[in-house]
C-alpha cells in the first residue's frame, strides 16, 4: 500500500466534470484507489463516493493505492489531481 498527499488547486474542486474525469482516469489502474478527505473516505472508482467527499479548492487529499501498480497509480493520480484545471 502506498499513499501520497496532494492539494486541490482547481476552481471546481472534485466536483462535476473534474470528478467524472478523475473517476475515468482511475479506472486505468489495477490497484484499488481510495481518496481521503479528513474523516471521509471514497472509493476513487465510484463517482457517487467521490462526489460525496465534497472536496473543494484548497482541500488537502490523501491518495491511497493498494495493488500491483500501486506506486505508479499514486504518483499519476496525485499528479492528475494537482494538474486539474477547470
Amino acid at each position: 500500500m502506498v499513499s501520497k498527499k496532494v492539494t486541490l488547486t482547481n476552481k471546481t474542486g472534485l466536483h462535476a466534470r473534474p470528478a467524472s474525469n478523475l473517476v475515468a482516469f482511475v479506472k486505468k489502474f489495477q490497484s484499488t484507489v481510495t481518496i481521503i478527505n479528513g474523516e471521509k473516505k471514497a472509493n476513487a472508482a465510484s463517482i457517487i463516493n467521490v462526489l460525496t467527499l465534497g472536496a473543494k479548492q484548497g482541500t488537502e487529499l490523501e491518495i491511497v493505492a493498494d495493488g500491483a501498480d500501486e506506486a505508479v497509480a499514486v504518483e499519476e493520480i496525485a499528479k492528475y489531481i494537482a494538474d486539474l484545471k477547470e
Partner: protein
Amino acid sequence: MKTISVTKAASKGIVMGKAFLVVQQNLEADKKLIRDSEKDIEVKKFEKAVKDTVSDLQVLAKDNDIFAAHMDVASDPDLHDSVVSKINDELKNAQLSLEEYIVATVEMFENLDDEYLRERAADMKDVGKRIMCHLKGIRSNPFEGINEETIVIAEDLAPSDTANMDFKFVRGFITEGGGVTSHVAIMARNREIPAIVGVAGFRGEVTNNDYIILDALGAKIIINPDEKTKQEYLKKAEEYKEMKAKLESMNGLPATTVDGRTVELFANIGNIPDAENAVAKGAEGVGLFRSEFLYMENTKFPTEEEQFTVYKAAVETLKKPVIIRTLDIGGDKELSYYKFDVEENPFLGWRAIRISLDLKDVFKTQLRALLRASAYGDIRIMYPMIISVEEFLAANEVLEECKQELRRDSVPFNNSIQTGVMIETPASVMCSDDLAKEVDFFSIGTNDLTQYLLAVDRGNQKIAKMYNSFHPAVLRAINKVIESGHKYGKIVGMCGEFASDEKALPVLLGMGLDEFSMTATEIASTRYNVRNLSYRECQKLASEVCIKGTISEVMELINNFIDKSK
C-alpha cells in the same frame, strides 16, 4: 363501431389514433428478509438488473448525454458493493437493499447544499427506478412503445407523466379519474392536447390498438369507427384547426365589446413554458400563477433563490402584470417531502394561507422571493383561501417584515407591490365589502368557490352533476363580489374555469368583471366572443339572471341570449 357520450371534455379538439392503455406501476420495493441460502440468487438478480439497466441506457445515450451520466451511476462500484453487502450481511432482498441504498444516497446528496449535487440526486433516483423496474420485471417507462398516432388511456395521469411521453405521437388523453379542474385537465389544455376525463370504467371498453376518435368538441368517444365516420371526423378536425388559426389571428386586438367596454384577458400558468405559451396566445397578463407547482415538483421546499429565478423569469417573459398566488397546498395537493396529518375534512382543513401563516419561515421565503422579483416587473401577490380581514392583514404583516429585511440589506423591490385576495370561500364573499377596503384587487376562484358554496366535493364522481357554477348561489356570490370591489374602486378578476366558459361570458361581462384569467388556449376564442358582444345587452342579461331562482331558468335565459346574438 361503438360510440360513448361523455360529459367532461377537459381540453378541446378532435383527434384520432391507436388506443394505448397505461399500466400503472408500483415501484416500491417488495420488502423481504432472505435466508442464507438465497443470498447468491438475490445478488445475481441485482447484478442482472444492473446489467440490463446499463444496456438500456447505452441505447438511450446515443441521443442524449444525460443517459451517459446515468450509465456511470448504474455501473458505479459503490452502488454495487453497498447493495451486495446489504444482501449478504443484512439478509435483505435485492429490492429492499437497492431501495435503502438509493434513499440514503439521495438524502446525502440533497443535504449538501449544492445545485449540482441536487441534480445528481435526481439522477440517482432515476437510475434507482430503472434498476427497480428490472428487478420487478416491469417497464421503466409506462409510455414506452408508442410509435404512431396514439390516444393515451389511463386511470389518471400525473404532471410528471408528460416527461415520459413522446408528443410526436401522443394525440390525446382519456382518463377515468379527474375532473375538468384536475391536473391532467390543466396539463392537457396547456399543451393543447385534446382530452376527455372522468370516463368511469373506460378501460374496460377498449383494448390496446383499437382505433379511437376522441371528439372533445362533441364530447364523444368513438371506438373502431367505420370508414365513413372516420372520414367525417378527419374533415371536422381540419375545420377546427382552421377556425382556431382564424381566432388566433385576432391576438393583437383588445377585448373590447361592440359598444366600447374593454376587459383584460389573462392566462393561468404554472411554470415558465406556460408563461411563454401565454405570450404566444396573446395573454395581456397572468391572472393566476400557481406557485404550488414549484413546491410539488420539488423534493424539498424550494429555496428563495430558486423561487426568485422562476418569478423573475415569469415577469420578464410576460412584460405584463403577473399575479402570483402564494403556496396553495393541502386539500388534495400534497408535498412528497412534508408530512401532512391525516384530516377528516382536508378541504376544510389545514391548507393554503392557513399553512403559510403557521409555517412562517416557508411563507417568508416565498414572500422574499416575490418581493425581489418585483424589482423586475409588475408582480402582484394573491393570498388563497382567505376567510377574514384579519388573515389578509396578518399575511401583509409578514410581507411588511420581509420588506424591512430587504430594505435593511439594500435589496431592491417594488415597495408598492399590490396584494389581493382570492375569493373562494363563502366567508370571503359575505365579507367582500370589508375586504375590498383593504385589498388592491380581488380574483374570484370559481372552482373552489362553487365547491364550498354548494357543499359539493368537486372530485366526487357520484355528485359531479351537482357541481355547477351556474347555480344561482354562485352567480349571486360573483355579482356581490364584483359590486363590493367596484364600490371601493378595486379591480375584480376571475381565475377559475368559469372565466373561459362561453355561456358564462355574457353574464360575467354584464356583471362588470374586469379581468378574465384562463388557460392560454382559451384566450383567442374568448377575445373573439367579447368583441362580438354588447356590454349593455350583457348588463341587462346579468341583472335578469341574478333574480332567477333555478339553474334551468338561468340556462334558458343565457341560451336565448346567445342564440339571439349569433
